[in-house]
């Protein structure tokens, strides 16, 4: 069990492998899209890891990237369609970012590095844990960005009106992508300090 916990900290896909950073910058202005994005990536990563692992012995190495891309796209489209049919509001919130999961390097990275050479069950676990490792960073970044950028959390106001009356201002830089990059940088720094 312990070996699967790596992605949450010492082998974190964003903080250590620096994969999937651009979506981490794009969807973290607010907490809610970040959480749904994290769950969607986890589902796609786990399912495609499982499928690729199941058919790993039949995939010709020369076209393995194409096969991986097909499987990933398949799950991304299914997730998108299911969200539109059942959780309509959430799907609207994520809009283009769901489609962009296809290009998330974490998923292809895990397929290449793990699913192609491991049995289905460990691959499934690996996918889930990497998705969660990615999600953890998203949630932490989104927490600070929404709190300081908009004064809200999960769309509920948490900074009291009296603070605004006393001259407190939301930090506009927080909701812009550059600040996300700086925050991710700080997290990478923290992670490095812990790892060493």
């Amino acid at each position: 069990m312990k070996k699967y916990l790596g992605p949450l900290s010492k082998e974190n896909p964003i903080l250590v492998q620096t994969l999937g950073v651009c979506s981490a910058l794009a969807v973290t202005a607010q907490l809610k899209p970040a959480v749904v994005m994290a769950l969607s990536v986890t589902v796609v990563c786990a399912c495609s890891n499982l499928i690729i692992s199941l058919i790993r012995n039949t995939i010709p190495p020369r076209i393995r990237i194409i096969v991986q891309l097909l499987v990933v796209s398949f799950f991304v489209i299914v997730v998108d369609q299911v969200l539109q049919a059942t959780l309509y509001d959430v799907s609207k919130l994520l809009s283009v970012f769901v489609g962009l999961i296809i290009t998330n390097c974490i998923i292809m990275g895990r397929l290449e590095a793990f699913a192609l050479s491991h049995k289905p069950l460990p691959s499934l676990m690996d996918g889930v844990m990497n998705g969660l490792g990615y999600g953890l960073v998203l949630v932490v970044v989104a927490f600070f960005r929404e709190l300081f950028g908009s004064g809200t959390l999960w769309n509920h106001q948490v900074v009291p009106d009296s603070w605004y009356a006393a001259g407190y201002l939301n930090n506009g830089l927080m909701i812009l992508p550059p600040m996300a990059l700086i925050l991710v940088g700080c997290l990478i720094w923290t992670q490095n300090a812990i790892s060493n």
Partner: protein
Amino acid sequence: MKKFSNTYIFLYITALVTVIAVVLTLVSTGLKPRRDRNKEAEKCQQILRAAGHDIDRSKAVDAFSNLAVPLTDDGRQYQIVCADGTKGIAIRLDGKGLWGPIWGYAVLSEDGKTVKGVCFDHKSETPGLGAKITDEAFMKSFEGKKLYDKDGNYVSVRVLKPGTSAEVAEENRVDAISGATITSRGVDQMMKEELVLEINHF
């Protein structure tokens, strides 16, 4: 490493693509009725919201058919009973945001001169910036605004940065969203173009 022949590769990828295409088609057609129903309910809810009604999406379609009468066949104009009991005209708006289309509905008073309410939506504006056009506070700021200036010229409701263009009167403008210049400009354009077109029909 195992050797795979070219024939195997061709057959393998053809089979895989076929299977995926078939399953995706099934998923898509299977879920289509639910997706369409969601979209229809959302449209009804948006028009109702622009008219001041706060109605749950599950009840929006029924409520809409009771309160609204279509004025045109294309579903772009409705006569609607507003929350305050007066009648208004709901008009569909379409425009461009930063990343994709933005749209919405404006409910005008019966003489077509005052905005009673609006409801905006967008495909892919940035969360926390352009996506704020769907915030209650932004949409509320349009209520009661006039489409004509004091001399009776059409100016629409402009979306402008606070403190700029002092020549546009307070009753003809709302504050733009800071950090979302292009989306705000898109709303500005949309209000200007769509409402002048529709108003000419009166």
